[in-house]
């Protein structure tokens, strides 16, 4: 009998090309996703060395970070540097023959939304991208993580990655989530509990009843932020929901191959007695709708809480909290629900999928946002946008006073014109509240789509459970 293995162990073993005595391993990569920001130097490197892309069929490119999301974008990108970067991807994709979804394609969108949507991401695969939120794809039971540009070049040239194995960490969410509490609240609560370095050196597997109960969209939200907890990747074992989601997608296996694939996918779970280097258990009933108050994703509190004081912390965190409070313009002791906002951003690879938009529409239906507020919804892909229009969600958003945009990363990192002004305070469904992330001196509060919608209605951070 072989030793019990975790899901991570199983995927790792199935992709091992070569292992040196010191454990340095060559891992085969099944899917390589590429976007315009982290790839130009990698393609240039290939060209300079006279190398080709080893497996163009396993390489999928889409521009997302720089693209404008306003309705007039067919007219081209005005920012010169952004335009050059997107054009570089256009020509690199053509030159090296990789799959490509240009800005004009209805399937274009945020790389981590497009991959699963098109059926590129499948259980048991290794998936990489020059982007830290590649962790998203772990929701399918795929080993997925971000890499730097040198590694992008390495994967393009060799379809492999040099890795040493991470440790195994289990995050179990037991029981059922209370009403009004979502996948985003789970993932933020975990980071609040473990800290942004809590998962460093580990691959996290999320499990437990509350994770099983999540839709595929919710699972993607949870895994998306594994990187914010410092983990190399987040994983969720595939189950019937996963198979159901994948079936019939353009690049999912079909016919006899579907059956063979399914048989293997069903073996992808952590064995009963598998060894875990670290285990965290959280009772779902204790999770509340949360928001962040500071400039690190670990700065998480229930919406019912108050702004903390630096003295509430220890070590390096005292100074960090002082700096964060100053940056965020918050006074200790203020109830979070009294913090007024200027802007609402709904979108990103964390929360830009159809289910997120449905949750937002549920809260907004028949209501108007607070006057004077700037509010935008940026769907994660052209197909999400089309579906939201078909379901009548877009109408609800626009009647409420939201701008309804085209697909892209947008104000998640503000590389395109969608940016916060200095001091502007934003309720955001994205994943990072770092200083300057959404615009120079911009202030970001992270939360779930339903919470962001509630904040749009009241003009302050709001407990969605109080809305009817």
């Amino acid at each position, binding site marked *: 009998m072989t030793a019990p293995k975790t899901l991570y162990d199983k995927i790792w073993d199935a992709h091992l090309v070569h292992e040196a005595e010191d454990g340095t391993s060559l891992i085969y990569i099944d899917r390589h996703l590429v976007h315009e920001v982290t790839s130009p130097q990698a393609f240039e490197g290939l060209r300079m060395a006279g190398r080709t892309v080893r497996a163009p069929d396993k390489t999928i490119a889409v521009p997302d970070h720089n693209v404008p999301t306003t309705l007039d974008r067919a007219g081209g990108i005005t920012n010169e540097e952004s335009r050059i970067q997107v054009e570089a991807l256009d020509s690199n994709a053509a030159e090296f023959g990789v799959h490509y979804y240009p800005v004009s394609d209805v399937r274009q969108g945020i790389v981590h939304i497009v991959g699963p949507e098109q059926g590129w991401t499948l259980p048991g695969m290794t998936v990489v991208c020059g982007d830290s939120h590649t962790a998203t794809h772990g929701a399918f039971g795929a080993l997925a993580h971000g890499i*730097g540009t040198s590694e992008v070049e390495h994967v393009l040239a060799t379809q492999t990655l040099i890795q040493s194995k991470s440790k195994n960490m289990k995050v179990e969410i037991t029981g059922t989530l209370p009403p009004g509490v979502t996948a985003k609240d789970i993932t933020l609560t975990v980071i609040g509990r473990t800290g*942004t370095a809590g998962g460093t050196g580990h691959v996290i597997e999320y499990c437990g009843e509350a994770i099983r109960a999540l839709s595929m969209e919710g699972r993607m939200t949870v895994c998306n932020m594994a990187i914010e907890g410092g983990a190399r990747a987040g994983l969720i074992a595939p189950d019937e929901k996963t198979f159901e989601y994948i079936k019939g997608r353009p690049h999912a296996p079909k016919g006899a191959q579907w059956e063979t694939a399914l048989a293997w996918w069903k073996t992808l779970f952590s064995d009963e007695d598998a060894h875990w280097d670290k285990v965290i258990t959280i009772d779902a009933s204790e999770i509340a709708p949360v928001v962040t108050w500071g400039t690190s994703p670990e700065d998480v509190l229930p919406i019912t809480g108050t702004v903390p004081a630096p003295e509430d912390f220890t070590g390096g965190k005292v100074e960090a909290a002082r700096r964060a409070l100053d940056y965020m313009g918050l006074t200790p002791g203020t109830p979070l629900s009294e913090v007024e906002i200027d802007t609402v951003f709904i979108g990103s690879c964390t929360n830009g999928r159809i289910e997120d938009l449905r949750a937002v529409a549920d809260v907004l239906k028949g209501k108007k946002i607070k006057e004077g507020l700037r509010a935008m919804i940026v769907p994660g892909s052209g197909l999400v946008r089309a579906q939201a229009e078909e379901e009548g969600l877009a109408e609800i958003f626009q009647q409420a006073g939201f701008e309804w945009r085209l697909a892209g990363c947008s104000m998640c990192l503000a590389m395109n014109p969608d940016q916060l002004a200095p001091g502007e305070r934003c309720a955001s469904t994205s994943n990072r509240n770092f200083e300057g992330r959404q615009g120079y001196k911009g202030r970001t509060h992270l939360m779930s789509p339903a919470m962001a919608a509630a904040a749009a209605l009241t003009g302050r951070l709001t407990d969605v459970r109080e809305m009817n």
Partner: protein
Amino acid sequence: MQKFTTLTGIAAPMPQINVDTDMIIPKQFLKTIKRTGLGVNLFDEMRFDRDGNENPDFVLNKPQYRDAEILVAGENFGCGSSREHAPWAIRDFGISCVIAPSFADIFYNNCFKNGILPIALPQEQVDILMKDAEKGANARMTVDLETQEITTSDGEVIRFEVDAFKKHCLLNGLDDIGLTLEKAAAIDSFEARQGQARPWV
């Protein structure tokens, strides 16, 4: 790939924890399609105000640290995005060694590809080095990758750990794509096996 062997230089103290990649190189500088020239934008929003004036309190703007080649930092350095622009900017500025209690995974790996040695040490030892760095420009420390030792300006020696393969590549400035391509036969046979077992991939 750039080499790193041994370095004696000025170390700048930056005790802040969770220094993220958005701080190291803000996104407006990610629009480049080159790897070079990012040093002037390193820590841009901390180093300069909106009009481009230097913030005199920021460590790398202080006269004694302008030529720093080593950075001693707080825990979880380099957290956030996978942008290799972060190590590119650090290297381009002239820093080729970062010492901290812990690093974010992707940033740590990216350093080695760019001739930067990241050294993770227990907090107490980082504290010693932080104190040494605070002495300013006269206190030069030495980092020797071959012997895996840091020597403070007082002659105190601190040993560090580094993965043997990464050390080998960094010492010799090896191109790891070239190394991997030598294993082409193993990759071919993996693909053949996978094509049989998992033809849908």
